């Protein structure tokens, strides 16, 4: 990097009488922007290709025969530029007049009024009175989807939105049709603007032609208060501004952070706020008495929960003591009186009948502080069964896992790659901002990006190799790539991989991927959200790590939710405490083990058990069977109501302070933006009070900052590494037959998004169904059926059948996290499909 920096040639130019050094080839407007010299513009946007069509940035360049557009004029040695000379001003004024010819002058009824670039520039560079008296152009508006309102009469044809689609979102959906006065920004005939990044077109639009549909006419920009916070849906942790009006959230817009989200955010981060105010917000504590939910006051509810957990914890201690005592007594039974021993055995037996199994499940989207306090509370109560990995099903190598699975590089590095292999990842919908960086790598570096997925996903860049196989065959595919990688490196595979590698069937595709990773100057191997849910995660990651190691690629994870990295640090895993420590840590059971237990007490933190787990069926059953379940959540979800005994209303996104750790391990703290709804309280405070009420020490925090500081001190010595310390033998699964596989649809990831009404109207919102390719449907004799019966283990469900050629053979695709997915069971399992009623 430093080498290329020093070789950049600079030229000296004079702008408004001031000598300025500028990199050769830079556009004039970049130089004036860097110098903070104001040049008006509409079509120029620093992140978009130059089009120079609005002409607003005309400036005077000495010796040039006409005014020059600053956005498309490269600087040259000795250039003398005047941005505010009479000549320049006249040119700018003329362009302004021209642009206003057809633009309505009715700012008071425009949603953009007050934050409109046209309005601002017109005030600064325009005339106070229009000389134009002829008729203005009128353009009929078009419905381009649930997120964006068009008011095309206001369009000044800068084409920023079109270039955003082409240059950034990666799909051309908006375009300019017609010509001259008939020119019109539109989509193809009657199509919607479907990009997962579409909302950014609202931001780039300099006028009120594209405005946000959900927040339209909700308030004026100058009345709103801007608060910075962190988006809570993916592991990128995009920086956003929340705009509030009289204590209510009006909208969310991006906050520029070049290292993370640049100037963009995904539609999920932008429009999810609608879910915060859902109808089923829990606004008061509730207790279930005799099967009926009754509102309660905080003292009563908290005391009940604290007493319950304390009782179970005390019982557990007593039991342990009794057991220890019994052991002692058995050891010296000879010297004891027989009656004493009998009494003790009897006592022990009665104790054994009392169940003392406890567990806590926390959301990957909970804040670091909430996760930390949950595990701290549970562990001081003697329970280590704390888990955040609700969508994971393979826990076999958890002890070998890194302290914090992370991206293995910083986010900016993704655009500098020359090659990448993504395993089990629909990165475009899962982490749209990471996808944007990867797309840049393909455009700028001609990067070779390949995928091994259980489904053919649609990407918005040229994918080198897009392998899609039934989920049960993914390990074999990786083994084949690993086999080529070892051949290329000349090393032999370690013993635990040797069999898998030896048995691999290598194809041309595997060779290409291996070669691309090996040849690349900068490469990465990443595991995505689907890999994380996969029943052979341990095999996938052992092979992925091996491929990365042999090809000198960075190995990383596109982690789930917005804070799963944080959850590992916070100790929200059963086998390690805060900071990944294993010394003196109360260990417990992981999710898979927990769901096999009869629980005496369980704490749910921001969990909706019917949608947040990979095996929602098993989790629901466990919770229904549990003696006592308390849910700390912002919502009064139907599934929580079914299983819980107490519901404590927690503050939602934007209502609490906290910290998220993104995939690159960056701690981003934020403050509450609005007051929690009703009696809801920040979850960290609820957990603190529970700590106080159970009478344990160490819960005397005054702010979430205190909690963070305590955890931070335990994380100081951590050096991030994804090295997998495992020697478990990797087996290639040879199961055949129809298997189910799943992903979490983009707008079903978490409770907030699932309630965001506008997002739920988009094409990316999915409902429960089963997808088969036409060949499989034919084979099963259901080609003509509209619904089919899906049998999985002892469960069955009647689902709508969708024929979808992106699904590989021997696969039935059923989305997770949508209503009704808990009827079946594990996200990846053998299924039988029959025609409905068969």
């Amino acid at each position: 990097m430093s080498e290329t920096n020093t070789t950049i040639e600079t030229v000296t130019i004079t702008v408004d009488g001031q000598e300025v050094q500028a990199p050769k080839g830079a556009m004039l407007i970049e130089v004036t922007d860097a110098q903070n010299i104001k040049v008006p513009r509409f079509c120029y946007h620093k992140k978009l290709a130059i089009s120079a069509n609005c002409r607003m940035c005309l400036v005077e360049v000495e010796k040039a025969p006409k005014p020059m557009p600053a956005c498309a004029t490269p600087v040259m040695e000795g250039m003398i530029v005047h941005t505010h000379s009479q000549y320049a001003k006249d040119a700018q004024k003329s362009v302004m007049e021209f642009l206003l010819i057809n633009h309505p002058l009715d700012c008071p009824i425009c949603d953009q009024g007050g934050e409109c670039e046209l309005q601002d520039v017109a005030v600064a560079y325009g005339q106070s009175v229009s000389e134009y008296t002829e008729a203005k152009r009128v353009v009929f508006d078009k419905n381009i989807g649930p997120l964006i309102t068009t008011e095309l009469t206001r369009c000044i044809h800068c084409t920023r939105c079109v270039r955003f689609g082409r240059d950034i979102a990666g799909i051309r959906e908006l375009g300019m049709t017609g010509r001259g006065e008939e020119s019109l920004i539109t989509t193809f005939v009657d199509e919607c603007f479907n990009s997962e990044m579409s909302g950014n077109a609202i931001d780039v639009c300099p006028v009120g032609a594209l405005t946000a549909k959900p927040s339209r006419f909700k308030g004026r920009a100058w009345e709103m208060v801007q608060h910075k916070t962190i988006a809570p849906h993916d592991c990128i942790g995009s920086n956003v501004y929340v705009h509030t009006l009289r204590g209510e959230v009006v909208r969310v817009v991006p906050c520029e952070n070049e290292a993370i989200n640049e100037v963009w955010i995904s539609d999920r981060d932008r429009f999810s706020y609608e879910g915060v105010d859902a109808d089923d917000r829990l606004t008061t504590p509730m207790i279930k008495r005799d099967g009926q939910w009754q509102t309660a006051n905080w003292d009563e509810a908290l005391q009940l929960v604290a007493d319950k957990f304390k009782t179970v914890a005390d019982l557990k201690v007593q039991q342990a003591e009794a057991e220890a005592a019994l052991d002692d007594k058995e050891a010296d039974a000879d010297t004891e009186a027989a009656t004493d021993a009998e009494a003790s055995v009897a006592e022990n037996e009665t104790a054994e009948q009392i169940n003392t199994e406890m567990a806590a499940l926390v959301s990957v989207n909970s804040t670091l502080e909430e996760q930390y306090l949950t595990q701290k509370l549970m562990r001081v109560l003697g329970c280590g069964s704390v888990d955040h990995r609700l969508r994971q099903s393979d826990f076999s190598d958890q002890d070998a896992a890194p302290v914090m699975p992370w991206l293995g590089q910083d986010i900016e590095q993704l655009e500098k790659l020359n090659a990448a292999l993504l395993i089990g990842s629909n990165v475009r919908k899962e982490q749209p901002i990471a996808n944007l960086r990867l797309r840049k790598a393909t455009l700028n570096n001609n990067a070779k990006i390949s995928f091994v997925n259980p489904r053919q996903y649609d990407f918005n860049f040229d994918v080198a190799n897009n392998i899609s196989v039934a989920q049960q065959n993914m390990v074999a595919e990786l083994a084949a790539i690993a086999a080529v990688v070892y051949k290329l490196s000349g090393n032999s595979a370690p013993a635990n991989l040797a069999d898998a590698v030896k048995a691999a069937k290598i194809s041309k595709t595997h060779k290409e991927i291996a070669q691309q990773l090996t040849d690349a100057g900068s490469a990465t191997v990443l595991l995505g959200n689907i890999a994380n849910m996969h029943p052979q995660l341990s095999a996938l990651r052992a092979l992925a790590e091996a491929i990365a190691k042999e090809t000198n690629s960075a190995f990383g994870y596109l982690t789930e939710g917005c804070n799963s990295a944080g959850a590992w640090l916070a100790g929200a895993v059963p086998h390690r405490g805060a900071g990944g420590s294993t010394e003196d840590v109360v260990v417990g059971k992981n999710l898979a083990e927990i769901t096999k237990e009869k629980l005496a007490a369980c704490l749910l933190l921001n969990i909706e058990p019917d949608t947040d787990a990979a095996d929602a069926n098993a989790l629901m059953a466990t919770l229904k069977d549990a003696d006592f379940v308390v849910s700390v959540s912002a919502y009064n979800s139907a599934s929580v109501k079914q299983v819980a005994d107490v519901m404590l209303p927690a503050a939602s996104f934007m209502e609490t302070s906290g910290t998220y750790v993104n995939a690159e391990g960056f701690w981003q703290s934020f403050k509450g933006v609005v007051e929690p709804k009703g009696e809801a309280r920040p979850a960290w405070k609820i957990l603190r009070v529970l700590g106080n009420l159970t009478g344990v020490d160490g819960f005397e925090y005054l702010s979430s900052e205190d909690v963070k500081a305590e955890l931070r001190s335990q994380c100081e010595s951590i050096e991030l590494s994804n090295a997998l310390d495992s020697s478990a033998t990797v087996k290639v699964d040879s199961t055949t037959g129809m298997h189910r596989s799943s992903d979490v649809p983009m707008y079903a990831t978490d409770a907030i998004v699932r309630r965001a009404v506008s997002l739920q109207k988009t094409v990316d919102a999915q409902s429960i169904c089963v997808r088969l390719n036409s060949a499989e449907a034919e084979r099963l004799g259901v080609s003509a059926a509209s619904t089919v019966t899906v049998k999985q283990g002892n469960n069955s469900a009647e689902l709508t059948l969708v024929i979808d050629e992106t699904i590989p053979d021997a696969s039935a695709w059923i989305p997770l996290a949508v209503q009704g997915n808990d009827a079946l069971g594990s996200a990846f399992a053998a299924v039988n499909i029959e025609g409905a009623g068969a």
Partner: protein
Amino acid sequence: MTTDTIEITELSAHAREEIDELLSHFPADQKKSALLGALNVVQHENKGFLTEELMVLVADYLDLAKIEVYEVASFYSMYELKPVARNNVAICTNICCMLMGSQTIVDHVEKKLNIKIGESTDDGRIYLKKEEECLAACAGGPMMQVNHVYYENLTPEMVDEILDGLE
């Protein structure tokens, strides 16, 4: 006028052949270069106008976004996006032709066919193109183009003869 459209699911073999020939003139990664020609081919095959389906098929064939095809098809006056009569009559009204009396020709034709510029005759025989830009035959103005054939130095009598001769 006939508006019956046949549902088309792929480009005709002939259209594909012609487009392939066009593509052979351009680098393999610049298929967009063949777009104007491709639209000409399919429009010609479809009684002189383009449909949504045809634009989608062309987009798929050339690996373009649908909107890219739509932009081009709506920009150029040589493409018709609505059903039109089978004979395409375009009278130039640009400066040179205007100076040479193209308005007389337009008035005459409108009166004769009882339609306005931009309309088709009820019998589906003649379409008067809405607004034709300069066709680069200024030396022979007023001029018109009928189904790709130029007619110059027009008089109302000549126009009558030409139009009456159309099928």
